[in-house]
């Protein structure tokens, strides 16, 4: 006897949970075969950016230290906590400071959430820099990954911009004077146009400052502009570029890795695995031939494992570690909130967060050179690396080509010596303005410790280029100098600069007001 409609309805009702689950997850159960593991990957919107199989080398933690993923995790954490903070934050010069105080002292979990937001943002800056260093020293920017290196640089700039616009929002002393200094750095091309007397006709500095502040003073117009940048424009730009970044990682054949031993047998982790050899007589499907020379047929290509579950476990672990580190930092250390913004007196010393302190030291030599030209030169230099160093080799291996390690150490010592020497000289003897009080400003812009760093490091790199006859080694030397310069300047400005930007051995020696 046929089932009546009522019976069918009751049966469907009974099977409801199962039916809903099946419709959500097509597989409906834990994958058991490699085929099902593949489906679990590419039938899921969020997972299908991964390839179905992943090379074991790229899963090795010491290749990447999971830095890219940690940066992404940091971003996800800031995104979630940022939306939560937006519930209470009021972007108005009258209310902003009080609303942060509310979040800190009154809102349930507000203080913790704000601390997490702040710490994950700081971690993100650190990790993005380390990620860049990792990609550089494993030569992972080489063909076909040149474009992704550029996307990564864009992401670095956006990350820094997000941090900058973020610490402006509390409208405390740090915020107010940071906007003042930041907008005046945008204004600093005037230093040059003033010096040659063309500001009246050509004033890019004034234009940039107006665009940032929306007024000729730091106030409500500036705050709302930075707010819009921080909560909408920059996150959107970051998410977009992040999508491109991931997409390119996948399309460029996954993470950079050394070629497997050609033919016969490949060795991995003491285990010898057979390497797939394509038959000359067989035609392979299009899917098999997208990337690489050896298509996976019947069995995975050599030295790969299924992404589900190996890669996803790895990714989850990195995410969990990032969350854990952030939570611990946020639990033990509060995000600072200085006094309410006071247009009359800056703090003394008025220091930026750590990642901008190297820049602040450079700016203390010349606003235009240190705040605009040198960052631009550094960015352009970094952007050119993959296009000037095009000889393949060393991809996916730390210090992969010969002598890289020794050039790294030599450059490390050289740039340490130069940086420390120059800082010591500047602290002890001053600079051009102290010796020639009436010197033309153009000389100060052109010749200062910052521009000399750039020149000396560039000269060192050219020396390595000539001596070692290798573009990669020249790039290694320059990148090492850049890292050392950045680190030492940051350290120097953090620890050794005190009130009036004078040199002190320790903050405990600062004069008491």
């Amino acid at each position, binding site marked *: 006897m046929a089932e009546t409609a009522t019976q069918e309805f009751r049966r469907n009702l009974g099977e409801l949970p199962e039916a809903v689950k099946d419709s959500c997850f097509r597989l409906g159960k834990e994958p058991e075969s490699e085929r099902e593991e593949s489906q679990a990957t590419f039938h899921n919107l969020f997972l299908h950016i991964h390839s179905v199989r992943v090379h074991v080398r790229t899963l090795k933690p010491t290749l990447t230290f999971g830095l890219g993923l940690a940066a992404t995790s940091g971003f996800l954490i800031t995104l979630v906590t940022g939306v939560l903070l937006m519930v209470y934050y009021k972007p108005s010069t009258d209310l902003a400071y009080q609303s942060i105080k509310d979040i800190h002292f009154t809102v349930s979990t507000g203080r913790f959430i704000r601390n997490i937001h702040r710490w994950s943002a700081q971690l993100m800056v650190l990790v993005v820099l380390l990620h860049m260093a990792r990609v550089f020293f494993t030569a992972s920017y080489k063909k076909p990954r040149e474009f992704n290196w550029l996307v990564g640089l864009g992401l670095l700039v956006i990350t820094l911009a997000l941090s900058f616009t973020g610490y402006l929002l509390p409208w405390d002393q740090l915020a107010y*004077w940071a906007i*003042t*200094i930041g*907008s*005046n*750095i945008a204004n*600093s091309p005037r*230093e040059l146009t*003033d*010096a040659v007397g063309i500001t009246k006709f050509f004033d890019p500095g004034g*234009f940039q400052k*107006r*665009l940032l502040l*929306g*007024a*000729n*003073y730091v*106030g409500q*117009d500036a705050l709302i*502009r930075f707010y819009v940048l921080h909560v909408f424009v920059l996150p959107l730009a970051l998410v977009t570029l992040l999508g491109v970044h991931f997409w390119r990682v996948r399309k460029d054949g996954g993470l950079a890795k050394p070629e497997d031993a050609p033919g016969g047998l490949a060795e991995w982790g003491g285990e010898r695995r057979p390497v797939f050899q394509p038959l000359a007589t067989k035609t392979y499907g299009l899917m098999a031939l997208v990337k690489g020379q050896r298509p996976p047929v019947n069995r995975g290509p050599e030295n790969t494992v299924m992404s589900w579950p190996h890669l996803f476990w790895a990714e989850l672990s990195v995410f969990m570690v990032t969350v854990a580190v952030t939570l611990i930092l946020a639990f033990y250390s509060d995000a600072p909130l200085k006094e309410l913004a006071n*247009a*009359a*007196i*800056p*703090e*003394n*010393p*008025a220091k930026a967060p750590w990642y901008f302190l190297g820049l*602040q030291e450079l*700016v*203390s*030599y*010349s*606003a235009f050179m*240190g*705040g605009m030209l040198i960052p631009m030169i550094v960015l352009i230099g970094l952007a050119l690396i993959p296009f000037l160093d095009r000889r393949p080799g060393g991809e996916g291996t730390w210090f992969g080509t010969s002598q890289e390690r020794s050039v790294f150490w030599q450059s490390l010592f050289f740039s340490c010596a130069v940086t420390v020497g120059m800082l010591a000289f500047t602290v002890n003897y*001053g600079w051009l*303005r*102290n010796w020639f*009080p009436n010197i033309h*400003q153009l000389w*100060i812009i052109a010749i*200062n410790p910052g521009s000399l760093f750039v020149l000396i490091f560039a000269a060192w790199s050219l020396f390595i280029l000539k001596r070692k006859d290798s573009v990669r080694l020249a790039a290694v030397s320059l990148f090492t100098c850049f890292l050392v310069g950045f680190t030492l300047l940051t350290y120097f400005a953090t620890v050794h600069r005190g*009130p*009036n*930007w*004078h040199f002190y051995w320790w903050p405990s020696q600062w004069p008491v007001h």
Partner: protein
Amino acid sequence: MSRLDPPRVSRRSFLSLTSLGSFFVAMGTAAVGMLRLPNPAVLPGPVRRIKLGPPEQFPTGSETPFADQNLVLFRDDDGFYAISSTCTHLGCTVARSKDGFACPCHGSRFNSKGGVVGGPAPRPLPWLEVSRAANGDLIVNADNEVAEGTRYRV
């Protein structure tokens, strides 16, 4: 094939190219036009002509800081002068030091007449125009810079 004998462009590809070109020109123009919006046409800001009070209030040889206005008023034997206390480097407020002014942010140092003696400041601290209101009070116009050494005699 020479320059004088270019390859034939079909009507179809000519028309597609021109329409594509017009698309980019239109979008580019629109983008530039939209960028005009955030460039403020009027710069809002507080009035920068500041009444400081009657001249008798400031004896000869005195110096009076006006912290909220970021300026210092001096009076010497030759008359009044006002020096801006906004650093010409990156806009921090300089503080009075033993022999002049010092900036807390990046270490610029100025002498007591505002001249640069050290640090990254590109220009001396500006001297501001001093005048008197109808009721006799001193007024400083912080938007008007005057030459160093200019005094206002009462």
